[in-house]
Each structure stands twice: as C-alpha cells, then as structure tokens.
C-alpha cells in the first residue's frame, strides 16, 4: 500500500475530525492505539526518548532488532550498506567523559529532507513520522545531503528477502520509519525500544509526545533532555538525555 495514499486519507480525515471537534476538547482515547481503519491524526506526535546514561557501550541490541524487523540486510560493506540506526560512541575531549547512544532518523517537525525532496517522496505524516514513499523516490539523494544526522541510506545493490511491512528498493533512499507498521498496528513500541527493554537497559522509550499522560511526555516535562543539533531548530521527535 502506498504510504502517500494513506497519508492523504489521513490528512483528509484529520481535517474533517478537526472541524467536527470543538477546539480545546481533547480525546484521551486517541492517545491509545488507533484502529487501522482510522486515519492518522495530528493529535499524536510519535517520538523516542533516549537516555544515554542507560545505554551501554558496545551494546547493539537496538540496531540488530531494527534491522531484523525491517529486513535491512548487512552485506558486510559498511560504506554502502543501509543503516537505519547506528550506535555512536561519543567522548568529551576536554574531560574524557564517554557515552554511547543510538542515532536514527530523529523525525523532525520541520525535516530538511522533506523540504528539499523534489518529488515529495520524502514526507512527514501528520503524526510526526518522517517517511520515504519508495514509489516516487527518484534516487537523487538530495535528502541525504540535507539531513544533519546522516539518518538516511541509499540502496546501492539488489536486495532480497524483504519484509512485507518494510518495502525497499535498489536506487531509492530509506531511513528509520519509527516502525510505522508497528505503530499503525497498535503495538505501542518500536523494535529498538523493545529490544533495549528486553536487554534490561530501558534506554529507549517510545511514545506520544502530545499525550501528557504518556511516560515519554511526563519524563520530557519533568526531566532535562536535549535535541541533537538543537541549533538547527528542527524540533526533533527523538530526544536525548544524559548528553
């Protein structure tokens, strides 16, 4: 199914819903999983909160889980293989303090990749998830030039064994989808967050930034967090703690 169609329907229904609802009226239920037949709405803003204090150096559980979930195969060529999520080891050269953090598409509110994409293949769903429509991506890679986080990968060779939920294609660009198929299914989590939890770190929390009852929103409100390259003013949906 074409994501753009889904998004289109989503936007339309959201508009209808928006006019039907009195302003200020909040539907708490919407924060929970919506049914697949319901439209995507801007009531939600999906995101992640990553606590680098809990993330351990050398652990790649989230990376493996993501690539397994989405069928991102490793050809043993790190320069050309797609990497939807990667572990970055960071060290402060002044103090020597080191930490480790996963970096993926940060699902910006104003994504540079979406701004520059000539065909509109790069798009942002109203619920905050930034995606590539593989049907209209022409493979120009301008989005990769524009992304400050190097979140995107270009498919350099033939790929086999794709997962039905994550269609991919040689010659197009792709990146973390925030496990959109899981979100739409109502799983309430992503592969990376799940794996991190299973491994006992709980460094990644998935949730709805707009739902003040959600763990992610509560923690963002009460604890300090940062955006990567906050100077660029992109209002990322993925936030970090402990940096």
């Amino acid at each position, binding site marked *: 199914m074409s994501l753009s169609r889904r998004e289109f329907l989503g936007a339309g229904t959201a508009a209808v819903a928006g006019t039907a609802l009195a302003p200020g009226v909040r539907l708490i239920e919407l924060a929970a999983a919506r049914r697949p037949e319901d439209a995507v709405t801007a009531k939600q803003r999906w995101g992640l909160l990553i606590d680098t204090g809990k993330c351990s150096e050398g652990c790649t559980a989230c990376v493996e889980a993501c690539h397994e979930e989405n069928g991102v195969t490793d050809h043993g*060529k*790190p*320069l*050309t*293989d*797609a*990497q939807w999520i*990667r*572990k*970055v*080891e*960071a*060290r*402060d*050269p002044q103090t020597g303090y080191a930490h480790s953090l996963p*970096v993926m598409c940060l699902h910006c509110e104003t994504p*540079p990749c*979406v*701004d*520059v*994409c*000539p*065909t*509109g*293949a790069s798009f942002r769903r109203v619920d905050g998830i930034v995606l590539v429509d593989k049907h*209209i*991506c*022409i*493979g*120009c*890679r*301008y989005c*990769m*030039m*524009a*992304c*400050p*986080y*190097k979140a*995107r*990968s*270009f*498919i*350099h*060779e*033939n790929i086999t064994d794709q997962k039905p939920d994550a269609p991919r294609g*040689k*010659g*197009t*660009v792709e990146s973390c989808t925030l496990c959109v198929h899981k979100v739409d299914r109502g799983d309430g989590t992503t592969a990376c967050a799940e794996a991190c939890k299973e491994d006992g770190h709980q460094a990644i929390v998935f949730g709805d930034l707009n739902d003040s009852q959600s763990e992610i929103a509560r923690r963002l409100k009460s604890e300090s967090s940062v955006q*990567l*390259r906050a*100077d*660029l003013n992109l209002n990322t949906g993925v936030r970090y703690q402990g*940096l």
Partner: protein
Amino acid sequence: MTKIHYSTIDGRGLGFLALLGLFGAMILGGLGASYYMEHNGHIVTGMTNQIVWGTPHVFAVFLIVAASGALNVASIASVFGRAMYKPLGRLSGLLALTLLAGGLAVLVLDLGRPDRLIVAMTYYNFKSIFAWNIFLYVGFFGVVIVYLWFMMEHRFNRFSKQIGLFAFVWRLVLTTGTGSIFGFLVARHAYDAAIMAPMFIIMSFAFGLAIYLLVLMAAYRWTGRPLGDAVVTRLKNLLGVFVAAVLYFVMVYHLTNLYATQHHGIERFILLDGGVYTQVFWIGQILIGGIVPLLIFFTPLFGRSRFMTAVGASLVVAGGLAQVYTIIIAGQVFPMDLLPGMQVSSSFSDGQFAQYTPSLPELVLGVSGIGIALALTTFALKALPFLPDSLSDDLVDPHAASRAKAETAVEAEAAGA
C-alpha cells in the same frame, strides 16, 4: 558596419565524421556506464552513503553552470549593446542550450531510478529548490530558443534586446538556483555561506566563456573561416577578468569562513591538511584554473598566440572542474558535527573524513555530458546558420582593424629602422 552573413558548416569531410565519431563514442560510453550503474546498483561506483554525490555531479553542475555563462556573449551584444559581440550571439545561445542538455542528462542518468524521470516531471514539491530548478532549466530552454529565433529572424531582430534582457535575468536566477542547491544544506560546513550564490554566477561567467572561446576557435579553424584577432583578443581579455573575479570571490569566501571559529575545521581541511583535496584546491583550482591562465592571457609573450589562448581557456575549464570537485566532494568528505564539541565514532563513519575514489563508470558518465553538449553543438552548426562566414577584423570591428594596421605599420617601421 558591414552586413554579417551566416551559414551552416559544410560537415562532410573526414574530420567532421571523426569528430562526430568521437562525441558519439563519449555518449555511448556514458549510456553504457549509466546502464551498468543502474543494473548493478551504485555499488559499482565510488559513491557511498557518506559521499552521496560523486563525479557525475561534478560534471553535471559544471556543465549547468557553464551553460548559463555561455549565454553571456549574446547578452553583452543585445543587453549591453556592444556591436562587436553581435555576430557572436547565435553560437552563444546554442552553447547555452547544449551545455545545459549535457549537464542535465548526466544528472538524470545518475539518478537511482532514472526510469522515473516522468515522476520527476509530474510530482513537484514546491518547497524544494530542486523542483524549482526543474522549472528554471526547462524555462531556460524555452527562453533561449525564442531568443535564438529572434536573433536569426530578421523581422524580429528589433525585439532581441527585450528577449535578451529577459534571458539574461533568467540565467542569473537559474545560476542562483543552482548555487542554492548547496545553500540549503544547513548542516554542512562547506556550504554554510551566503556568498555561494554570487560565486556561482561569477564562476558561470568564466566557465561559459572559456568553453565558448574554445568552441569558437575550433570551429573557425576546422572550417577554414577567418577569425580575426579583434574577437579573440577581446574575448580572451574578458575571460581573464572573469577568472580574476572568480579568484577574488574564492578568496572572500575563505576569508569570511576563517573569521568564524566554527568553520576553522573545514578551512584547515581545504587549505592545509586535506591531502588530495588540498592539492585539488591549490594546484587544480587556484594554480591551473586561475593563476596560470591569467599569466597566459596577460603576458605580452603569449598575448597574441592563438595556441596559448586555447591552452589558457582549457586550463580554465580544468580548474573549473577542480573547483566544483572541491565544492561537492570535499564538502562531503569533511564530517558533519553530530555532537558539537564531542569526538564521535560509529559504524557509519561519524566523525571521520569520508573516503572517496572516483570510479571509471562515474568518470565515463560525467565526460559523456561534454560529449552530448559538443555533439549537439556540432549537429546544430551543420543544420542551421549559427556561425558568421567570417569574423575577420575588418568585418567585426573596422576601427580595431585600422588600429592594428597602424600598429603593424609602426612596428614594421621600427623594425626597418
């Protein structure tokens, strides 16, 4: 002024066929390279997820920038009213079209999905400067074709000033658009400079005129038509001014960057310790593309030598490619700041200088853009009267001719004395 007569080139001799054969081979090579890249994926190129735009983009951007610059000669005649440039206008318009076609072809053939060209033409995101450029390029073809038509059709000659002005403005916008492709890459240090757009305009002046001069001299030599010193010297001097202006802009660009501490890293990389990229900058861009041509153009020793003028113009082209290479490739090699102030490393080359070696298919594809431009030019010269029968001094600029005669007479006298 004497009436200028234009005619098509003969185009039957062995030389003509050899020339077309050469350009044809370049084009076939490019198509083959593109097919090879699409069939196997970009894995067969030197491009990676770190260096996402490679050698094809260097050639494509160079040709597109040169295309708008090639139109300058026509603009000087119709917009700025310089009579001497008038007979040169048609070739100028033609080169603008063919160079743009060559550049765009390379860009399209390098796409991950060139088969989706129709998608690029039917789906637009109006926030994207790329999408705007598609309009600017297509519009440029239209405007220049009308411009050429008005230049060639006597009845419309009198409008050529208006359409010329329109085309001139269009080309400025177009080059700004091309330069802005980089201006929108906010996170990359190399492109974070307002001077990029005007620098692209002045680059286009130099690259376009260098190619114009080369094609003009080759066409007249190979068809045995007279080409006087007045034209060549004038164009050569103008090219010298443009080359100096490019050097000046490059200097200002780096000086302003040096002023901002956060850009010191990229400046060090380009100017001092970037290895091959530092060499491409100093030897390729500055020395070969700037200083040597200036010496050739303005030292009396070479001043009158056609051969040296051609060498100088070729060096400007080579230096131009080096300059675009520096902008596109070196700009990507230098790592982006993911966590400013921190040392970072990852499996995705974070914090590292990216590695890139141009591959053969990329090079062949890039060169094919030049082949496309030159093949189209050659065909057009045979099909339509673009070239004046003669550009001898007495036809183009009678005053200059008499001046030159007087000078020679003085010289002869001096020599005789």
